């Protein structure tokens, strides 16, 4: 998916995460992370974000993240929403996991 405009998903509440996505002129994925648990889970959070972006075929994006202790599933959900908004995409593939 192509990031067409800036978009945000999430709130600043405890256990949530805000993911803000913008187009990146350098044609790569860059992540700026701020987290209340950065030292313990910084790498893990970045991994979830990168994996989710890969799943959505996002090759270029500038991602700003403000994490308040969100679980992986929450991170993934917020990234997906932000990407859909930024790509102005309305058809979502609701995957049912077995």
């Amino acid at each position, binding site marked *: 998916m192509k990031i067409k*405009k*800036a978009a945000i998903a999430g*709130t*600043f*509440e*405890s256990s949530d995460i805000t993911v*803000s996505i913008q187009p990146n002129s350098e044609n790569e994925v860059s992540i700026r992370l701020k987290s209340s648990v950065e030292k313990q889970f910084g790498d893990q959070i970045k991994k979830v974000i990168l994996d989710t972006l890969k799943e959505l075929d996002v090759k270029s994006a500038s991602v*700003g993240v403000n994490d308040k202790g969100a679980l992986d599933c929450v991170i993934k959900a917020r990234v997906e929403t932000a990407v859909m908004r930024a790509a102005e995409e309305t058809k979502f593939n609701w995957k049912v996991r077995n």
Partner: protein
Amino acid sequence: MEYLSLKKEIIDNKDFKKLREIEQFLLKQGLRLDKNIEYTIAVYDEDKIVATGSFENSILKCIAVDKNYRGMRISNKIISELVAEEYVRGNNHLFIYTKPDNYNTFGDMGFYKVAQVPGEVILLENDPCAVGRFVENLKKKRVDGKVVSAIVMNCNPFTLGHEYLIEKASKESDIVHVFIVWENKSVFPSNIRYELARNGIRHLNNVILHKGKDYVISSATFPSYFIKRRDKVTRIQALLDIEIFTKYIVPALGITRRYIGEEPFCDVTAIYNNVMKEVLPLHGIEIVEIPRFSKKREIVSASKVRELIRERKFSQVKELVPDSTYSFLCSKKAIPIIDKIQNK
């Protein structure tokens, strides 16, 4: 602590009754409700307002939580909502002006410090790299010299008065950097004011024009809702603007001098000039005040030009502006602006 059932509500701009309630609530917190607000939300406990927040363009303001409801992360709800709505409106570079004491609250929500006037105001933005990028872009336009001057102007529109000040600085300096204040409250929009200035300085080869954008603070957009004494507002705004100027712009461009025009009419500008005369020398910046350019014993000012436009006295307007500005005023593009001036 019992769980409170709090209701969050978007306040319509025309719901004067609710807005007045919000104004009352803010007054109790020692704050005012800014006149220019685009969007407001409030949090209620039953029918009582316990918190509120608003924005205008990219500036979040008038944010307050009742002291009996603090520590419940209500400000998180307010800011989350305001930020989400800003993004929907296409604004992703957001600013907050507030009391320095609030730094920790907003810092927690991804807002970073740009500059502060101790004890008075702090400016925050939601991107930690934005100021750095601004400085890097300025550095690209850096030209070294013994006398590197700066001028900040609104140019609403660009007149012979502006031309005179810039020409004087150009003669007396190696390089002149002119910053156009960026806000859309002036009747001539920012990009047009910039174009007119650009055309007005074409004949000078040592003048570089810049768009003031986010880091040159306009009194039109500076929110003062948290400053108790109204008579201190302009001074505090000037101190903040000069702090940003000396912290970021001066080192990036190697500025050694700032030119200003004498201000006999506008109180706000006069206060500004005085603050600059007080503060800039402390940072090693020379400040040079030039008497205003006059024609037929009358000072040439942009407000005079707008007055003449309103009175449809275009032949007199022609005497006060360079040809480039006059031909713009005669063009189709100027019609909506002239209409606005004449129908005010």
